[in-house]
């Protein structure tokens, strides 16, 4: 390959962007576009591998517009049979100027051997500029025969340059325009319109017709159509057609231009289907705020705050039995128990059992939390990506509630645990109670039988000491009550610290699970989304 023929870096980078899009596209991109993109990649790969010295020029058109006659006129030989019966040509004929290296290309074009012709053009005077031309005479595309035959379609898709052979009768046929010409926008460089059978018209008519044809083509998006009036019969215009073709052939760029035009066309359709727009503004990762939101919602699903609160309340309630001032507790015992009166004594134990902490996750809330995350992230996405993101977010949803339950049960508060200081306090309380009892006994003894005490207890009979004893007894009582209140405060303080710790721990674990089971797949999809649109942008730049 010479330097002239190497594809511009633009084309190869765009082709690689296209292959990236194709790689990421399945399930996201319209299958029709996908298959077109795939076939374009395939074709581009094939064509760029094959001879770049040759330019494939196809003569296409409706039946009876004179493709074969023009083919013969250009090649100067009666290679393709012409006739008046319609349709005439059923097989593609090829004529090659400069055979060297053309065979693989002709094979690729699937031209039958017996329809291949060669012109040793280098020897022909004045035809050297056609060296490298492969001229194809296609079958028609609009006769009833063509209904079951896509030969013309296939080669129109493969040729580097297409010469549309039109004639005064059929130049405005829908079968040509709707199916092919409207697809040609952007292909101006590799499309030529030959208005054949010009000999049938007067000069004025021809001029009018050329203007009309130009207008028509422009209306259909072909910005600068190349229209060459020709007449295969009189030979008029054949030379100018030849020179147009020769110019393209000598530039050796038609193949690349064709691919570029096709790529641009495809890219436009892809962009229309999936506009890049703001898509790249969507981050490729889940931001912190959203993660926080998800963790919060999952914590709610588990009931982390409620678990904390319950733990705290139950802790305080239970501590009462240990560190509370015993007297009010004893007083409570004498209160009649409604449960007992309902003969549901065993229930009260079970009620205590309920408090034995288990933590579970509510599946519906987990679902809603994940849904909300996906919703928030995909708000501005293309519907296809939105649904694929939802799908990704939910890919492991089924396992999340059980994972949460299992993981958090490990840190569930042990409510039947009794701290040592509770026992100490209890002992202290009972000591105080005992002291109080002693005081009361002293007072009783001292007051009732002051003299009758054994000498060892004489002091107790001392009336002067009695007020002090009374004071002490009351103080013990007060001390007990005070210590009860104080220890309760301690318990509450501890409980709330425990609760904080618990909540932090649970949150940490919830966050870990959320990261692993929700955020991770979501981020994978986001990354794919980002890569896809980056490739799309690469395709269009």
């Amino acid at each position, binding site marked *: 390959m010479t330097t002239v023929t190497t594809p511009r870096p633009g084309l190869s980078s765009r082709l690689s962007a296209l292959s990236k899009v194709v790689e990421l596209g399945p399930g996201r991109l319209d299958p029709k576009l996908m298959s077109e993109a795939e076939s374009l990649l395939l074709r581009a790969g094939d064509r760029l591998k094959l001879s770049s010295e040759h330019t494939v020029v196809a003569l296409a058109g409706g039946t009876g517009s004179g493709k074969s006659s023009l083919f013969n006129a250009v090649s100067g030989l009666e290679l393709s049979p012409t006739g008046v019966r319609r349709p005439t040509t059923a097989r593609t004929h090829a004529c090659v100027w400069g055979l060297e290296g053309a065979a693989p290309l002709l094979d690729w074009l699937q031209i039958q051997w017996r329809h291949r012709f060669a012109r040793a053009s280098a020897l022909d005077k004045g035809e050297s500029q056609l060296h490298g031309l492969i001229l194809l005479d296609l079958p028609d595309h609009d006769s009833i025969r063509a209904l079951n035959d896509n030969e013309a379609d296939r080669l129109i898709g493969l040729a580097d340059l297409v010469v549309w052979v039109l004639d005064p009768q059929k130049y405005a046929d829908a079968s040509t325009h709707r199916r092919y010409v409207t697809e040609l926008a952007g292909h101006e460089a590799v499309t030529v319109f030959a208005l054949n059978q010009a000999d049938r018209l007067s000069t004025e008519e*021809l001029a009018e017709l050329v203007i009309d044809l130009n207008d028509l083509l422009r209306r259909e998006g072909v910005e600068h159509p190349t229209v060459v009036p020709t007449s295969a019969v009189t030979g008029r215009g054949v030379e100018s057609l030849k020179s147009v073709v020769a110019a393209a052939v000598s530039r050796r760029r038609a193949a690349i231009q064709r691919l570029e035009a096709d790529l641009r066309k495809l890219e436009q359709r892809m962009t229309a289907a999936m506009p890049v727009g703001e898509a790249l503004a969507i981050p490729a990762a889940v931001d912190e705020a959203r993660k926080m939101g998800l963790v919060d919602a999952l914590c709610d699903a588990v009931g982390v705050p409620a678990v904390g609160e319950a733990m705290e309340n*139950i802790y305080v309630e239970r501590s009462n039995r240990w560190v509370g001032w015993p007297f009010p507790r004893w007083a409570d015992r004498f209160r009649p128990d409604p449960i007992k009166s*309902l003969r549901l004594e065993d229930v009260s134990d079970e009620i205590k059992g309920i408090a034995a902490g288990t933590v579970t996750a509510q599946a*519906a809330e987990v679902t809603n939390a994940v849904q909300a995350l996906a919703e928030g992230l995909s708000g501005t996405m293309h519907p296809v990506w939105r649904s694929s993101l939802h799908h990704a977010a939910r890919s492991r949803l089924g396992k999340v509630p059980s994972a949460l339950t299992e993981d958090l049960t490990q840190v569930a508060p042990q409510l039947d645990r009794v701290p040592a200081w509770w026992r100490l306090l209890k002992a202290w309380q009972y000591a105080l109670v005992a002291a109080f009892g002693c005081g009361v006994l002293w007072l009783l003894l001292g007051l009732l039988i002051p003299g009758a005490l054994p000498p060892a207890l004489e002091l107790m009979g001392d009336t002067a000491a009695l007020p002090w004893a009374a004071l002490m007894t009351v103080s013990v009582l007060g001390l007990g009550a005070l210590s009860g209140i104080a220890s309760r405060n301690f318990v509450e303080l501890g409980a709330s610290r425990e609760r904080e710790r618990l909540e932090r721990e649970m949150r940490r674990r919830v966050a870990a699970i959320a990261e692993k089971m929700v955020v991770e797949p979501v981020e994978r999809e986001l990354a794919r989304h980002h890569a896809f649109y980056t490739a799309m942008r690469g395709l269009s730049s």
Partner: protein
Amino acid sequence: MNTAMDDGRGERPGEQTLSLPAITDAPPGPPADLPAEPERAAGRPPGAKPEREATGPPESSAARPGRDSPAGRRAGERSEPESPAGRREPGVAERSEPEFDAFAPFASGDSKPGPEAPAEPQFDAFGPVVRGSGAAAAEPEPATGEETDQAPEETPAAKREPVAVEDSEPGAPAESDASEAAEPGLPAEAPGDGAEQEAVADEDEADSVPEEPEAKSVPEDLGDEADSVRESPETEAESVPEEPGDGAESVAEEPETEADSVPDKPEDEADSVPEGPEAEGVREEELPPETVKAMAAALGALRESVASLRFGLDLPGAGEARKASGELLAQLEDYVLPRVRMNTAPALIVVAGSTGAGKSTLVNSLAEKNVSRTGVRRPTTGVPVLVCHPDDRQWFAEGELLGGLRRFDQARPEAGQRGIVISATEKLPQGVALLDTPDIDSVVEEHHEIAHRMLDAADLWIFVTTAARYADAPAWNLLRLAKERGARLAIVLSRVQDRAREVVLKHFVRMLTEYGLGEIDRFVISESKVADGRLPDSEVTELRLWLAELSVDGARRAQAVRETLNGVLDSFRTRVPALAKHLEAQVAFRGELRGDVEAAYLGALTDLDKAFRSGALIHGEVLARWQDFAGSGDLMRSLQLRKRARSGRQTPERIIAFRAALRAGLESVIVAAATRAAEEVTARWRHRAEVGAALADGLERPSDDLVRHAGRAVAAWQEHVTELVRTEGVAKRTVSKLVSFDADSLSLIFMVAMFSGGQVEGVPHRLVKALLGAESLRGIGAKALSDLRARISMLFDEESMRYVQALDSAGIPDESAATRLYQATYNLEVAR
């Protein structure tokens, strides 16, 4: 057939000549003559009418007898006093008494079949003759004068007489005179005529079967004729084919009574020979008026049903169905209805073909006038151009045929898709009109539509193609269409180079033969210099002859017209049911989509039920709050012994939180179920068809209000349960003596018990059971659950309404429309 036709013509030249005076008299007569010369007026209308009548009823009666009991019928006719007279008259005094003309056709009509009787060819012969007389009547007119313009129009009028009377304008004195003349009063004024009139009336009243149609037509014709003389017959054409005597007081009783008597018989006949017209079509018979009436009614019904069709859902094929129904409707209005009502109107020959095939050039050459623009630009013709003989012009200008199109004198830009240019030239023979259409295959797709619409209204198709194009796919698609529709077709192969003539022609003919079109009339036009938009005259001679023949040979024309009409009517057998089928598919599809919605939300409700029963609700926060409630002693505290007064205790925070947690839990379960249902619906819709996907757009998620509504519903339900517990939770007497309870707390325990499902041994369950008693618990439980279900299903109904609305917004297909279509098709078949 041709020979038979000739025979027929040869047999009765008298009639043709006879009809001349009658008609020429008529047009100038009415305005002035009628009042002045009642006899003449009276005489004339019958004279004019009968000819037409002759073409109409007598034929049909003749044809019918031919089928059921020709001999008897004819014998009956013969036995009547008039017929012999009538028959004699034409022979004896044809020329002298125009009035007798009236009977001439009858009589001869009657008498003819007699001898010819059952032999079909003879019927054929007979038909053409009668027709021929009609045509003959029309032909001489140009010669006689311009006033006779209306003569051809009378033909349609006459055909339509049952229709037309309605419109008659009594305002004109002449008319009333004429109609009076038609009435029995007439004899006094004009004995000669009167006798005949009476005779006619007698016949009618005598209920003699075969005479009926004639009888009916005669008196009506009087009125009608009077109208048609004065009014433009086209306006009458508008009138509905009912109540013949209705509109015009002047026409009054007589015709009415007769008209009354008429329908009975013929209908019987029609009943007994339901397939009559079809068979007759072959014999180019005209339809008896009653059949016309029945068919017009059936077609009208069909039109109504087609017009009311809506294909709202964009199912695959909906576009085609929409297009097909549009075409059907246009064809019914443009062509079938007008054609059925008056089938002797000039034949419309539509010239169609590819762009650049030379349609306009051909039409210009035949018209010898540049009526349609030609040129090298493709496509050239955008607005259809109709060319006809000046005499036919008015008919086309005001007729119902292609009634939906605006008429223009010359091509104008605003004509566009809804216009038609009408132009007249004497170079064209009468009775045939050429319509130059836009192409069928250029880039301008509106042209294809116009062309097809014109073809739908065509009596004959001339298909133009060229040596370069004859293998084009669109051309063959059109030929296939023509074949499918059974349209009468002629093919013109133009631009044939002389040197290629042999080969091309051979090949083309072979292709045609392979396609089953080998028998069709073909014309070849050589490639030649087109001067001034026209071909050399020599190239079109053949075609011109063909046209002339068609013009002169009314029978052949009529046959072609009938064939095409029958072809179109036949095509309804498949086209209408195809529409109905698609409509049914729409209805069924809509049903499926609705079913999807219902199934999804029903599934969601079932899921919820399951969740309630399985204890899925007592998880997460609810569980934690329950533990809190129980473990912190609130549960015990909520139960108090009776003895203690319930001091106005504040509801503790924990209870509020518990309640809120329960509400949130329920809400989330509901929302999750609704979300799932919404996704399921959209997924199912997407799966079904593209249109489902389009409809489902934006409905993948539950509505924004759902959360709010669900919260409100659950809160209301909680209130309801608390209320239930308070009012109905009459505790067991033994319990209530001892224990009082706080309704708020108890309702919460109750809810936990309810949602923890099967765990009957659970604490909450046993507690509430002990407190409320098993029976009361069951009652409250059932009520609470059904109330919850009702609230949720209301929510879901609201949700599913969105889908139903989306469906409805696409248009609600009428489920009975398909049935109506089938019915209309069936009725049409019966009427034929």
